[in-house]
């Protein structure tokens, strides 16, 4: 069964969201379940620091051998960092989706909305785990 860490929040689009030590800044990636469904990942196209997105807006794409998938902003905010390591090692998303496979850090427009994301139990139920 796919690993769904209890200390993260999730979206129905199979992204995880982690509160960082900096207030209002979250880290975003795709879940272990999502990487398993996509298969071997060969490119991750990410935005630039400073780009702004509304909730559910596409902020990038993830290209796997057999499929391409959009990445969606979990909440409205501005990009403060991107994981440049994925340029040369996109397979990190397959290998370590919750660690080296992180994608962007987002400064939320409204930090209180974080609590409205799915918790681990709700996400497990979403994927039938």
């Amino acid at each position: 069964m796919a690993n769904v860490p209890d200390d993260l929040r999730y979206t129905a689009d199979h992204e995880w969201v982690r509160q960082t030590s900096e207030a209002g800044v979250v880290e975003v990636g795709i879940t272990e379940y999502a990487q398993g469904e996509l298969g071997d990942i060969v490119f991750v196209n990410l935005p630039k620091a400073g780009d702004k997105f509304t909730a559910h807006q596409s902020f990038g794409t993830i290209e796997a051998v057999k499929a391409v998938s959009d990445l969606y902003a979990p909440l409205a905010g501005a990009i403060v960092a991107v994981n440049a390591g994925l340029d040369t090692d996109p397979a990190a998303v397959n290998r370590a989706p919750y660690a080296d496979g992180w994608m962007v850090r987002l400064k939320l427009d409204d930090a209180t909305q974080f609590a409205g994301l799915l918790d681990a139990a709700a996400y497990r139920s979403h994927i039938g785990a």
Partner: protein
Amino acid sequence: MTDSAPLLRTPLADIHRSLGGKMVPFAGWEMPVQYPAGILAEHNAVRNGCGVFDVSHMGEFEVTGPDRNAFVNRITCNDVSVLAPGQVQYSGLLTREGTFVDDCTVYRFDNKLMIVVNASNRAKAWEHVVDLKGGANIRLRDISDDIGLLAVQGPMTQALLQPIASIALDGIGYYHHGAGRIGGVDCFVSRTGYTGEDGFELYCRLKDTVALWEAVTRVGAVPIGLGARDSLRLEMGYALYGQEIDDTITPLEAGLGWIVKLDKGSPFVGLDALRAQKERGLNRKLVGFRLDGRGIARHGYPVFSGGKQVDVVRSGGQSPSLGVSIGTTFLPAGQAVVGTRFEVECRNEKIPAEVVKRPFWTKGSVRK
């Protein structure tokens, strides 16, 4: 067949599931697209070692009777008369317009011929062949449901299979076949494949398919799904029906002129149209390309040249062996030369592409 028809299953379906195969619908069959190792690992296993594919879903037609050679020569575009018993030939079943009903391989035996067709075209190809029978003194049988087929591919294949084979595999040349037992299972063993690597296709009785699979995996052949089958064949530039070829495309356009024997001395279905096309000259030709930017050119993405759309991507993907994004498309004949630059629209972004030589992958172990 309707979408709601239950999917067909090969004798190996339960084994694929038990191995963790991700099962998908393919041409009406439930087939593994990949196993837990993943497409890249499976691809590399075939390039470097030995993999086994379940291709029991493919179709086989048997032709017997006194007119068998003349009949198959009339319904296929390659020249059956040059085939000796024990040989295999890549060929095409064509419409009167010279376009593909299907591509196929033709096997000659002492007393029969066998035509192997794509699973996706089995019903259509069978109907086509039966329609052409006319007064020929032959017997046609669709034996697909009686036959299991495993493709064992990769540079280590012969070394792995020889200890469990009853015949000297080295004596079977490229595009030749012989009869023998593999792991105790009666097979005919064909040095053919769709990967660019050395290897064999093993045809057995349907009821023996599981025993044959167990025998070849026991000696080390790694299970490979349809995902890697596609990436391996694309790197070789081999045509896939529905992408590089279909019933609107002729072999001449698809770069398969070498399977068209206009002068074989007997007429065949599609001959007049192909002769006329050859005299007139081609409007378009299939090319291989490399994408010179970040992205993957996927099947159906628009292809632009000189500011206007000229085709779509026929096949495309990341080449695991080369680490670049490759694909095939049709270009106007004048532009279909190595070095031509054009663009592929990948998700609203036009990415530059350049025509390159096929096969993309030239280091395979396939015997020639």
